[in-house]
C-alpha cells in the first residue's frame, strides 16, 4: 500500500476528520467581497460628486461608458483565463494590433466591414498562438504572454509605423459607426460599448454560474488533475479561452478605433494593467478557481468611476495609474493579509510550530 506520508511541508495531509488547511468556503468569501465592493463604489461616487460638480451628470455616465466599456470587454475572457490558473498579459497589445490592422487596411482602401473581419481573424490567430503555446506546448503563460505582448505590439508597429489613420488623404471612418464615440444608445445615456459589455457580461455570467463549462472552469482552476479524471478536456478549454480572448480583444480594438475615429500603433499601450486590476479587484483569485461576474461588473464600475472622477479633477493619467496600481495591490493584499493575520493568530494559539 502506498503510505500517507508526504515528503513536503508541515501542512501535510491531515488524517480523517482533521480541520482542513487552506482557503475558506468560496461562496461566503465571494459574497463578503462583493459587499465590500458595493461599499467602495458608493464611496467613490460620493468622492467623485464631492470633487466635481459635473460628476453625477448624464454626460459623465456616457463618457464613463466610452472610456471603460472597451476595457471591460477585455476583462471578461481574461477573468475566465485567470480562473483556470493562467494569465494573458497580451490583451492590450492585441487591442492595438487589431486597431492597427483596421487602420492599415482602411489606409489601403479596404471597405470597413472586411477590415473588421480581418481584424477579428487576427485576434483569433493571436489567441490561438497563445493557446497553443500554453495549452499544447505547456509553456508558462506568464512568459508566453509577455512574449506575445511584445510581438503583437511590434506587429502593430510594423503595420502602421508612425502613421495615424485616417492620415491626410485618407477617407474618414464611416460616421455611422464612429458616432458610437459621441452618441449614446437611443433612449439612454449608455454608450454602445458599455451596452455591449453588459450584454456580454450577462452571457459570461450565465456560462460561469450556470453551465457545465462554468463548473469545468472552476474545477480546472481548483484542481486540474481531478478535472481531467472527470473527463474535462483541460487543454482544449484553455486553448479556446485564449482564442476567445484574442477575438474579444480584437473586437475591443475595433470599438476603440471607432470611438476615437482614429488609430495609431500605440493604442491601448499599458492598458493591461487596468484589465488585470479590474479582474483581480473584482474578486477573481490569481490562483484560479474563484470569481464571480457581479464582482467583475462592480470592479468595472469602480475603476471607471474613479478614473472619471480623477480626470474631472484634472489629475494626470500617469498619476491616475497610482490609484489603479493601488487598487490592484489592495485586491491581493487584503485576502492575503487576512490569511497572514489568521496564520499569525493560529501560531500564537498553538504551543509551537510543528503541531
Amino acid at each position, binding site marked *: 500500500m502506498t503510505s500517507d*506520508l508526504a515528503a513536503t511541508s508541515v501542512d*501535510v495531509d491531515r488524517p*480523517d476528520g*482533521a480541520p482542513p488547511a487552506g482557503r475558506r468556503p*468560496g461562496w461566503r468569501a465571494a459574497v463578503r467581497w462583493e459587499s465590500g465592493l458595493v461599499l467602495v463604489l458608493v464611496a467613490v461616487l460620493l468622492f467623485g460628486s464631492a470633487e466635481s460638480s459635473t460628476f453625477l451628470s448624464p454626460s459623465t455616465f456616457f463618457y464613463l461608458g466610452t472610456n471603460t466599456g472597451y476595457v471591460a470587454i477585455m476583462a471578461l475572457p481574461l477573468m475566465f483565463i485567470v480562473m483556470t490558473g493562467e494569465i494573458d498579459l497580451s490583451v492590450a497589445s492585441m487591442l492595438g494590433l487589431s486597431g492597427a490592422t483596421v487602420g492599415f487596411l482602411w489606409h489601403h482602401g479596404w471597405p470597413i466591414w472586411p477590415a473588421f473581419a480581418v481584424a477579428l481573424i487576427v485576434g483569433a490567430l493571436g489567441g490561438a498562438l497563445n493557446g497553443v503555446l500554453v495549452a499544447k506546448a505547456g509553456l508558462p503563460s506568464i512568459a508566453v504572454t509577455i512574449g506575445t505582448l511584445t510581438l503583437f505590439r511590434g506587429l502593430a508597429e510594423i503595420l502602421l509605423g508612425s502613421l495615424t489613420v485616417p492620415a491626410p488623404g485618407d477617407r474618414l471612418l464611416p460616421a455611422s459607426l464612429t458616432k458610437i464615440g459621441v452618441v449614446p444608445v437611443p433612449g439612454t445615456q449608455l454608450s454602445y460599448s458599455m451596452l455591449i459589455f453588459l450584454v456580454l457580461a450577462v452571457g459570461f455570467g450565465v456560462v460561469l454560474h450556470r453551465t457545465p463549462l462554468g463548473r469545468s472552469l472552476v474545477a480546472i482552476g*481548483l484542481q486540474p488533475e481531478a*478535472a481531467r479524471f472527470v473527463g474535462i478536456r483541460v487543454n482544449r478549454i484553455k486553448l479556446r479561452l485564449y482564442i476567445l480572448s484574442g477575438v474579444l480583444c480584437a473586437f475591443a480594438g475595433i470599438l476603440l478605433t471607432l470611438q476615437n475615429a482614429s488609430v495609431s500603433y500605440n493604442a491601448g499601450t499599458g492598458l493591461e494593467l487596468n484589465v488585470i486590476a479590474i479582474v483581480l479587484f473584482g474578486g477573481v483569485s490569481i490562483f484560479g478557481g474563484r470569481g464571480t461576474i457581479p464582482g467583475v461588473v462592480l470592479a468595472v464600475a469602480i475603476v471607471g468611476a474613479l478614473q472619471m472622477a480623477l480626470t474631472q479633477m484634472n489629475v494626470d493619467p500617469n498619476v491616475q495609474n497610482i490609484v489603479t496600481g493601488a487598487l490592484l495591490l489592495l485586491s491581493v493584499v487584503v485576502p492575503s493579509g487576512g490569511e497572514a493575520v489568521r496564520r499569525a493568530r493560529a501560531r500564537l494559539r498553538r504551543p509551537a510550530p510543528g503541531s
Partner: protein
Amino acid sequence: MPEIQTGAGGVPRLVIEGATKRFGAVRALEDGSVTLYPGEAHALLGENGAGKSTLVKILGGVYRPDGGSLLIDGNPVAFNGPAAAREAGISIIYQEPSLFPDLTVAENLFMGRQPLGRARRIDRAAMQQAAAEIFAQLGVELDPRRPARGLSVADQQLVEIAKALSLNAGVLVMDEPTAALTTVEADRLFEVIRTLRARDAAVLFISHRLEEVFANCQRVTVMRDGRFVTTAPIEEVTVDDVIRSMVGRELSALFPKTETAPGEVVLEVDGLGSEGEFEDVSFTVRAGEIVALAGLVGAGRSEVARAVFGVDRRSAGTVRLAGVELPNGDPLAAMAAGMALVPEDRRQQGLVMEMGVDQNTALASLARLRRRGLIRRADEAALAADWAGRLQVKYGRLRDPAATLSGGNQQKVVLGKWLARAPKLLIIDEPTRGIDVGTKAEVHRILDGLVAQGTAVLMISSELPEVLAMADRVIVLREGRVTAEFARAEADENSVMRAATGQLSGAAA
C-alpha cells in the same frame, strides 16, 4: 553473510512510549510505542489508519505529540520542528523524495551546509569529494556532479540516505522504501541498510511487503487502530501471526460477499501497453463480477486503470466496453460508453477539495443535469442529497467543501459521483485506503451490492485480505506484466504474494 550484532539489550537508540495525537475529534494515535536498538532494522507494520504515519511524523518533528515520551539514547527530548529532530539524529526518508532538480547531487546533499574554503566561498572540490566518499561508504555509484533532475526514485532515495548519513543520523526512518523499486534496486537498498546497521544506526522500516520484512529485519512492531499491539524478534513470529495482529479479527466478518453468477463480458482489455509502465496486459471483466488487480505498489496497476479509462494514453492494445472499442486517451468516450474510475488519490484526482459536496457529486453528471444548456443548483443539490443518503455520507451542509469531510466520507462522495452515472463498469483504485474500519465495511457492502445488480467491478487493491475476500478473480501484476490469474477458489495469500513478488519457489517466511 555474517550477522550484524544489534545492540539489543543495551541502551536503545530511540524509545517512544505511549505517544498520543489527536486532530479535533479524531484520535490518530492512542498508544504509539517503538523501541529501536543500535544496529537493528526494525519493521513497523500496520494497516492504513493504524497510526504509523502519525507516529513517524512525531519522530520527525512534524507533529508534536499530545502525550507520551520520547527518549534518544536514554535522554528525554521534545522536538519543536523538523530541524530539531534532524539535530537529534533522526532522518526520515519519504517515499517520494524531494530533491532540487536543477542542482547537482552534491549540492542536494549539502544544501545549507556546503563546505567552505577561503573567504567563505563554497569549496566545490571538497563538497564533491565528501559526497563521493559518502556514496563509496554506501557502496553505490552516483556522480555527485550530475544534476538531480532525472534521477530514478531509487537513486533519489540514495541521495536522501546519503544526506542522512552526512548528518550523522543515528536513526533512519524509511517509509515504504521499496514501493517504487525494482527487485534489483530493492536488493541494493537492503545492502545499503546493512551498511548503515554496521555503523550502529537504527533503521525503522515501514513496509507491507512481508517477505522483505522477514528477510531483512531483526524485530517487528505491529500497530492497529492507533495503538501498539505487539513487538517481537522476527524469528519468533510467523507471517500469519503478524497478519492476525494487524487485522485483529476474523477476515470473513469484514467482507460481505454475495455469490453472484457473472453475466456478459463488459470489459475486454487486449494487449494493452504503455511505454515504460506496463506491457501486454489482457483480461476481461464480466457483469456481476469483481476482478481484482493485485500486485505490489509500482507493479503498474493504477497505470493500467488509467490507460483503460483513457486519462493516460496507451501505446498499444485495445479496450472494449460492452463490445464498443474505445478511442485512445478519451475519458469522455469511456464515460459515455459506461465506464467509471474512482482514482487512487482522493485528494488530487478524486475530488476538488474546495468545491462543495453537491458540486463534487454532480461533476461527472453535468451533461445529464443540463436542461436547455443550463444547470440548476437545486438539481445538483438534489442529486447530491440522493446519493449522500444512499451511501450514508456524513456531512454538515451540502455546500461544505469536500475537504471538511473525513476520508471515508470523501470516498463515498467520489463513489456517489460515479454511481450517479449508473456505469456498466466501475474501476476502483484502492477502495478503502486511508479510511476508518467502519466505513471500510460500508464501502465493501456498496461494492457487493453493485455487483449483485449486474455492474462489473475492476478493483485495484494492495490489501491482500480485501482482495482475497472480495474478488471473484484475481489478476496479479508484477513489474508491468500479468504474471498470474486466479479464480476465487485458488487464490490465497501465498500464491498471490508469490506471483506478485516473482518468487517461483519457497514459501513465504
